[in-house]
């Protein structure tokens, strides 16, 4: 019997560090009873990370959860726990953006999901149509990025509205090759994980023949204007763009890449400078 305790998981350095640590402890376990205890707080969007971590081990182990009632309720509402035998629960507050495990070829399903969850959902926080559309587009760019570069079997995503904070957080995770490995393969170099993320957010593309590299750089630009926040975890680097742009090192490596986006929903800015619109 193995028991892993996640106590106060939110979108911050300490939580990513904890999740990377647990991933390393759990990833090679087989034929065990594994209980994941969720205490105090678990930001629902982080289900994408937990889903990625548990995916492989859940095929060879008996996974159960010991969550406090509030956490259990929200993770039933966003349908994370329904993948582990729990009943789903009606989201009467309309604050969840459902947990989804997708194959890379499910791009249309993903886009439809984003449209339904963000653009078409009734009673969701008030946002201008342009803002909704830009948020959807940003999220689709990141999904496409994961599909193109990670060589992953699955992509995990989940979001959450935080009405009192006027924010949406959305997380996309792949457990494929990380940004560092991708850059190293493309350019035949050896680099640190922070250099790799710096390249990715600066518009360096690993694609050959076709131009690219705009996904993350456009997202970065939008997040800055929206006063949101962008976090990327890949290998052992944690990148955060908020009021400042920082790179920190985790104690252990996370395989693949986590991209977490926080958007402000009370932002009524028009994202168009007249000088830019010239076609």
């Amino acid at each position, binding site marked *: 019997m193995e028991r892993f305790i996640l106590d106060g998981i939110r979108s911050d350095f300490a939580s990513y560090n904890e999740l990377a640590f647990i991933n390393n402890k759990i990833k090679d376990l087989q034929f065990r009873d594994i209980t994941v205890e969720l205490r105090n707080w678990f930001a629902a969007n982080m289900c994408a990370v937990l889903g990625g971590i548990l995916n492989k081990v859940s095929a060879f182990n008996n996974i159960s959860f010991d969550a406090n009632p509030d956490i259990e309720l929200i993770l039933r509402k966003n349908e994370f726990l329904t993948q582990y035998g729990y009943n789903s629960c009606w989201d009467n507050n309309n604050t969840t953006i459902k947990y989804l495990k997708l194959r890379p070829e499910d791009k249309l399903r993903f886009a439809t999901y984003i449209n339904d969850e963000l653009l078409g959902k009734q009673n969701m926080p008030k946002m201008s149509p342009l803002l909704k559309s830009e948020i959807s587009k940003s999220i689709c760019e990141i999904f496409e990025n994961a599909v193109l570069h990670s060589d992953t079997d699955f992509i995990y995503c989940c979001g959450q509205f935080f009405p009192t904070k006027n924010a949406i957080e959305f997380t996309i995770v792949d457990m494929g090759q990380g940004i560092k490995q991708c850059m190293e393969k493309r350019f035949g170099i050896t680099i640190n994980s922070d250099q790799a993320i710096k390249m990715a957010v600066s518009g360096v593309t690993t694609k050959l023949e076709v131009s690219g590299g705009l996904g993350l750089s456009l997202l970065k630009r939008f997040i800055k204007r929206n006063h949101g926040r962008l976090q990327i975890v890949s290998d052992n680097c944690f990148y955060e763009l908020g009021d400042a742009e920082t790179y920190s090192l985790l104690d252990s490596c996370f395989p693949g890449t986590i991209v977490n986006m926080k958007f402000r929903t009370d932002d009524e800015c028009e*994202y168009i400078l007249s000088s830019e619109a010239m076609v």
Partner: protein
Amino acid sequence: MSEIITIYIHQLIGKDLCIEAADGKAVYDVLEKYIEANQKVVVSFQNITLITSSFLNNAVGLLLKNNTEEKIRSLIEFEGLQPADTILMNHVIENAKLYYSDTERMEKLAKEIMEEE
């Protein structure tokens, strides 16, 4: 033929979401033929709900590999783009111009970042 042909992206790719690189490539294959034939075309994005850079890199960015921006703009007129998508289109075109004018650019940019440390 006197009338300019209008092609509808929605019809061409069969969906209202311009997100897939493969769909972008299908659009590219059509547009390249218009350019080869020196034939003007209107490309309508009417009823398209979402466009990503990955789609446009393949549909339009790739045209810059063998054609100048001037030639493309003289033959292809884009219509029905939302203002935010017009900006995205401009980014894609500028990015592709840089990419194809300097094929070593990505290597240089990667090297610059490595040397910053």
